[in-house]
């Protein structure tokens, strides 16, 4: 499971949906895996405003990953300003009129899309329910008394 996905995930229990503690879920005994994903600069730009930065920062801390800056990068930090006088050919088409993706964008891509949880558990801060993650797949089936 990508860290991006975890940044959107909440506890599935009805009783938790309305509480603040049901987001984010907290990884436990997490085993990470880096899975290469083709860079999609426009996707990173699209999704960044929806990322809960504070939750992502804490998550990276908890997982022992390199520390993220205190605030989310601004849209202007994602692409180099001069698109047209860049190199001809590769990359340009992909990013349209945006110029080249910056290192900041590439770092975001790496953290959000290439860093994954392969094994472990995700724990709800509200009800304590543990969702198992196996081979990257989280089990969100609830026993009927918890629905």
């Amino acid at each position, binding site marked *: 499971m990508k860290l991006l996905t975890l940044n959107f995930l909440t506890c599935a229990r*009805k009783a938790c949906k*309305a509480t603040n503690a049901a987001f984010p879920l907290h990884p436990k005994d997490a085993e990470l895996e880096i899975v290469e994903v083709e860079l999609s600069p426009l996707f990173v730009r699209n*999704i960044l405003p929806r990322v809960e930065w504070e939750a992502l920062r804490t998550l990276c801390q908890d997982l022992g990953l390199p520390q993220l800056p205190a605030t989310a990068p601004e849209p202007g930090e994602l692409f180099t300003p001069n698109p047209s006088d860049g190199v001809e050919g590769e990359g340009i088409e992909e990013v349209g009129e945006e110029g080249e993706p910056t290192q900041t964008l590439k770092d975001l891509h790496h953290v959000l899309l290439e860093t994954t949880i392969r094994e472990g558990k995700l724990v709800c801060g509200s009800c304590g329910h543990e969702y198992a993650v196996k081979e990257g797949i989280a089990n969100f089936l609830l026993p009927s008394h918890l629905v």
Partner: protein
Amino acid sequence: MSRPEDTLPPDLFYNDSESRKYTTSSRIQHIQSQMTHRALSLLSLRSPSLILDIGCGSGLSGEILSTFSPETNPGGPHTWIGLDISSSMLAVALEKEVEGDLFLADAGQGVPFRPGTFDAAISISAVQWLCNAESTEESPAGRLSRFFNGLYASLRRGGRAVCQFYPKNDEQKKMVSSAAVRAGFGAGLLEDDPGTKSAKTYLVLTVGGGELDGDITGVVRGMEGVDVMDSRRRTKGRKRGEEAKGSKGWIMRKKEQMERKGKVVKTNSKYTGRKRRIAF
């Protein structure tokens, strides 16, 4: 042909051998891919988006979402998250190393993502399964409503969803689409090849309030066989996608807003937003 959903629960029907047979059948691959393309064109996504795939199975649709194509997936490649109730189907998806993240989950229990997560959602050949309750504690109507309420909340304003499904009969078609409308969606039904053996039903859903034209008639206008079942007539005078003050949708949205501001709000119940009966 008998309907599989009348024979077994989905997680038992899609066991290891059925999931493999399903995924390797070139006939099924072809049909599922056609329907995915149809759904993608109805979503008309203009740039790489985050998409939820409900009942993603072995990822036949997901593979299409992940691939940019100037003709059939011009906005792609998209990033997708798939939910499925069958671990065997997901195991096949894992083997194929699909790019989306996978969840073992029952859509009838809701959609466990925070509000406004997804740009769009698709569901191909899965929603009819929700019309069966697998235990006495649940009802099809309850499962459909949990699903559509969850889906509605998890989509961003202006987002869209397309669900191709196989309704058993008109009654089921109506039960599904009215559950979607009750959750707050603008809804339209689109029928391809109606009356034939290969008839396909698409439920096209929009969430109002975005910068996009959230108007369902904008999506399916001029298409043959489209039945718009928007509830806009009731909401005349208000901006599209805005619920009546005090309605369930309105209360849920207010609660969402308050939650996001860090306030504790009361748990939603099926009674949320209902007129209270006078107690004697």
